[in-house]
């Protein structure tokens, strides 16, 4: 059953009356089933962030429809969407989207706080994720006091804190060394396996993408192609590299 469905999504930025328009998405259709673990890859500016924003209801498509769990997003009210985002959805933002005035711990706890969870639950969950991603030591620091990678791990933790059924992650490993990346991707893997969550992530990182079951390639706002993982990770990584070179990236990725 498709938990997330996009039908002919078009997104045009800017005022159509003026000439300065950018077509970020051009007739994208995709369907994601419960429990799938999918990566989206594509060149910078190909429309990946735009797509995630539209799928999560943060942005409105110029035309086309998004259906989440059988409900059309444009028929749901702004408030319901907000509630959906914090209850069902975990979003890892490309720019982390951390609040400067809150500590790491408070940032992580925010979705739970909005949900009025008990403080005991909050503490337990925060500790658990912090331990998992190795950020226990910086829990009381403010975002401007920690590194980009630490901020990223905070952002990922926050996306997971409410045990979301769908996770949309925009380059969750972009600032991380391979060990930290592996931590995150392994965590995602576990979530998909154990909790049957659905994960859609955007990445430039072949290593990260190789954890997924499927990679969708986007080019100029359109779905170019997709490949499905059938065997081991290393083999899958080779397939991804091959596909990327077809799209027009450089062949010598390493």
């Amino acid at each position: 059953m498709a938990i997330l469905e996009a039908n002919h999504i078009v997104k045009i930025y800017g005022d159509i009356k003026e000439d300065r328009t950018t077509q970020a998405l051009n007739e994208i259709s995709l369907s994601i089933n419960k429990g799938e673990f999918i990566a989206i890859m594509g060149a910078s500016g190909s429309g990946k962030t735009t797509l995630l924003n539209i799928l999560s209801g943060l942005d409105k498509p110029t035309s086309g429809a998004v259906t989440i769990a059988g409900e059309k997003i444009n028929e749901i009210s702004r408030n319901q969407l907000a509630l959906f985002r914090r209850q069902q959805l975990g979003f890892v933002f490309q720019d982390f989207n951390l609040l400067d005035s809150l500590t790491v711990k408070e940032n992580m706890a925010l979705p739970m706080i909005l949900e009025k969870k008990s403080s005991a639950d909050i503490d337990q969950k925060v500790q658990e994720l912090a331990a998992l991603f190795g950020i226990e030591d910086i829990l009381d620091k403010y975002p401007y006091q920690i590194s980009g990678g630490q901020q990223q791990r905070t952002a990922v933790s926050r996306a997971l804190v409410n045990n979301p059924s769908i996770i949309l992650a925009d380059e969750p490993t972009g600032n991380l060394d391979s060990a930290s990346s592996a931590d995150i991707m392994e965590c995602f893997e576990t979530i998909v396996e154990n909790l049957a969550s659905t994960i859609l992530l955007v990445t430039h990182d072949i290593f990260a993408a190789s954890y997924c079951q499927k990679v969708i390639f986007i080019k100029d706002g359109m779905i170019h192609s997709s490949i499905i993982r059938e065997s081991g990770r290393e083999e899958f990584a080779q397939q991804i590299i091959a596909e990327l070179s077809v799209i027009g990236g450089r062949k010598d990725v390493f």
Partner: protein
Amino acid sequence: MSFSQIVWKMAKANYRKYIFYYLCNTFAVMFFFVFSTIYFNRQVDEVKISGSIQFLLMTPGVTLVLFTIFFISYAHQIFIKQRRSEFGLFMTLGMTDRDIVKLVLLENTIIGLLSLTSGILGGTIFSRGIFFLLMHSVGIGQVAFHLSSNMFLYTTIAFAIIFLIAVGSSLYHVFTENVIANIKSSKTAAALKNNSPIIGGIGAAFIFISIIGVYLTYAYSNYGGELLFIWAIFTILGVYISLNQFISLFIEFVKRRENYYYPRMLFLTSINYKFKHLTTILTLVISLVMITILYGTLNLSIYSMEKKDVLESKPYDIAFLQTETKNNLDQETVYSIIDQEDNRIQGYQQIPVYTHYERMEDDNWLVSYSFMSIESFQELTSISYELDNNEMLYFINSEFENNEQEEYYQENAYYFADENLEFTLKEIIAGNNINYVSDSAFFIINNTDFEQLESQFDGYKSTIHQINVEDWRETDGATNKLEKNLLAYNKKTPPIMDERTEGSTEEEFFKVDSKIKAFQSIKMENGISFFVMTVLSIIFFLGSFILLYLNLFSEIESEKEKYRKLHAIGITDKEVKQAVTKEIRAIFFIPAIIGAILAFCYFISMMRDIGGVMANPGLLLYFGGITITYLLVQFIFYLYARKKIIYKLM
């Protein structure tokens, strides 16, 4: 694209910041100018010389100057905070210090001149409006609006000085901080420094000590006015320190109680941030609220107390002194003037007195001794007393509360009794039974003695006339007419040039003493004080509101960003509204309430002077009334600000 073109383009993109800065300066000039239209007003000036208004104008005047200094430098800080990151960028791109100085000076000169012009213009309109409104509502027709060169001069000078200091100090900051700090200056804003419970405690102690200080000063010393200023500085300092520390301390404390903290986290952190960064402003707002409420109350209190005093010190509605040649209208004529169909004369006393003057040998001081017959005394006070020849009573015409004064009179009486041996002093009696038209104390002797006085001392015969009517409030016309008639009569007789009019004038000596005229003169003097206070309160109120409002708006971009982020995480519009409401409410009302509480403490302490609040419960009503009015007006402004901000954020 040349460098100056880039600068110009950035300026155009940031036009809002310039407008914000320009408006702040305009307001500052406006405040100055409105104040100076009062301070240099001719009629106010006249009252200023005569009395309490000088004191009334002093403190708010100083506060206004301090306030404006803060106001301008604050506006400048906000402006420069945003510009600093740009300057940092320009500097990394190769702009020289000289270029930056040139740019800052150019910008600020233009903005300064524009602000000065529009501020004075706005101030003129505003002030004229207030004068007009108050003249019609309070009925102080005497205070007319006018302009004078002093008003322009002082406004310009004051503004120029403060403005230059602000510009100078921010230039200093731009050059002393390093480039990265300049660029990041807006980003690290969320950084909160460490808090110390000890410093917070010192702040609280300052407030506490200063209030006790005010209490003791007013209870036990005569230097209330002078010391008050020092205590006020202590309080404000204390407020500053504790604001800076306490909210953070409180939050740290609360953080440990997560059940309490988590649901309020967004609110508390943002209030903490605001209070920390707005310490100066909030302190200022608190001081303004305190001064506005306190002075408003004192003004009303002084008015009501003076009114009570004056009316009580005049047992009769109309009184005057009459001699053979002066004020000598017969009773019939007086009746025809005063006695009105709807305001009948209730009582008319004519009390003959005899006044003897003696010059002190040591200092040439002229002392008067007035005599009254026991018969008249009985008529006045309904006290019957048998007096033999050469016996006397001493009647002091006032209700004694003050012992020093009583002693003076007693000594006076004994002295006279000693000098004039034939009289023995039987008793001293005090009471307020005569309007002050001739003397403040009288020797009471029996009728035979009184008739023979003339042969014993030289002196002057006169008669005290005292009239009571049904309603003294309705005696304005009659009193005027009486005064006119008496004056006309006195003109026809030769002028008096003897001991009686020494150091005074004949006109003064024979003046009609009436409740209505006394009441009118207090009303006018207080009316002007009231007027001045009202204008200052309006300035302060607007000033504090503008400060809060501008501040909220200067941060609106980062607030927007914050709520955008929260929205992405899944906060609903309703929750945003609630959060914003809670925050604005705290920012608008916490200072107002703290200010009101401090004003209350001051008020209670200052009332020690007149026997404590319990002795004057009516004054508490004034306090309550003014505070509630203030909070109500604040509430309306709060609703407005909230609407605007929610609209901007959504």
